């Protein structure tokens, strides 16, 4: 691992993460992330050959449940949290011109 994070890298990552960052933000996050990645780069010293990656602390099988539709009856309450609604739907800016 050899981290070289520039403002352009942050700009690209911000696009992927849908974050609207200013040029000054990108420069600041680049400097901070560079330091953080330099710190985590010490993991390169660990021999992990033949080690299975661990995604989760419990090796349990996937939990299954019956494929049954339930009504929560909460639609109106959920819509109360919507920033904008119209005809019991979430309203968003126009997508198709």
């Amino acid at each position, binding site marked *: 691992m050899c981290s070289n994070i520039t403002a352009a890298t942050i700009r690209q990552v911000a696009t992927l993460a849908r974050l609207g960052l200013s040029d000054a933000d990108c420069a600041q996050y680049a400097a901070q992330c560079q330091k953080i990645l330099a710190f985590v780069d010490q*993991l390169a010293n660990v021999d992990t050959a033949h080690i299975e990656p661990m995604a989760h602390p419990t090796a349990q099988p996937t939990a299954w449940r019956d494929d049954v539709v339930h009504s929560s009856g909460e639609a109106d*309450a959920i819509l109360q949290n919507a920033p*904008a609604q119209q005809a019991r739907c979430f309203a968003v800016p126009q997508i198709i011109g």
Partner: protein
Amino acid sequence: MITQQSEQLARGDITSVALTEHYLARVAEKNPQLNAYLWCDTAHALAQARAADQRRAQKKNVTPLTGIPIAIKDLLHVTGAPTTCASKMLAGFQPTFSATVVERLQMAGAVCFGKTNMDEFAMGASNENSAFGPVRNPWDPTRTPGGSSGGSAAAVAADLCSGALGSDTGGSIRQPAAMCGIVGLKPTYGRVSRYGLVAFASSLDQIGPMTHSVKDSALLLGAIAGHDPRDSTSLDVPVPDYTATLSTDVRGLTIGIAEEYFEAGLTPAVESAVRAAIKTLQDLGARVVPVHLPHTKYAVPTYYIIAPAEASSNLARFDGIRFGHRSPHSDSLRALYEASRSEGFGPEVTRRIVLGTYVLSSGYYDAYYRKAQQVRALITHDFTQAFATVDAICTPTTPSTAFRLGERVDDPVQMYLADICTSSCNLAGLPGISVPCGFSENNLPIGLQIIGKNFDEACVLRIAHAYEQATEWHKKKPL
């Protein structure tokens, strides 16, 4: 505290309404300085207290928690109360359901008393990342209470509730508990349902009790633990009566000491207090032996790859469409996403989303995320080896006592090192508790961490209780 209050309620010496009013008055007096609560509503609390008094009067479904006011970290949903996660992103959000842990507390008759301040979306070790201002440490208001459950820790330490719930992803219960001089328990991953907890890092998050005493911790854990089909990672493992297995006797138990934890840049006060605590346990009859956890120093770097990676995925849901902040400054869907997210998230959350997206992105996934998952397996294997010969492992909870507000805000790596003694537990899924074990020269609390085997919270609580009963640290209170 809970135990005594419960006895007083049972005898009729006090009512839940009187107890709740007592805490409401204390919150009104102390919260303007401490900022431990983000929301505390008199009518909401007293309605529950009246119902609890009625239950006791009718002798219907009375439990030791009936009528006891418990504070709830503001990332757990409580119907009738807002959930903000201390973020502008969720200002005004009203959940439509309660978290399983809240439902269980309310079934037991507890009063869900108020919502406590925290680092935004639980990301932080000092509570300075709250969008609603930092929490101050009751022992010294110029210092942080730790984080991210700093509001819950300060509320318990300052006697603004009987007990509290926090959540712990890399130390967020245990670290503030140590810095505020209270008891904080992170249960085994899967022991407590995460349903209704706003997720930060789903393979690490656990909810747990923050209390004045170990007995209170046992009582609260017993109430919230157990399988929940609504959380697919909650495990169907029997829940013992944790209060029944508390004992002052640790004879026959073997406690491991890992010197790797004492190489973590501890302050002299922390090191001497923790070594003295281990000596006390030895004097009480526990056998103390060395164990080796050689990958300990890699826990923080591993954590700061895995946790941001999971966070970047979990926080993708905050897009300004169905709930949460929506920017008024956007004319297209994409601009709406970008503006809403950048306006709603604070700098630390943004930094972690950026970092998490980077380590998961094409070209870097193997070098960072996969590598961290492999080291996580090695850290877990270290514990498995150690627990073949010991019942529990004692370590410091934090390398230092509470630091000053503003001291580490410009240096993320320095801030992240506050998790150096706690994050291994989350990576391996193990239970860990912090109990008060001393004070520094400037009167700041120090915590002893006791780590147990998976699902062996009973052993962790037993050792913690024995230590607590043999010492006086837990009796000392902030001004």
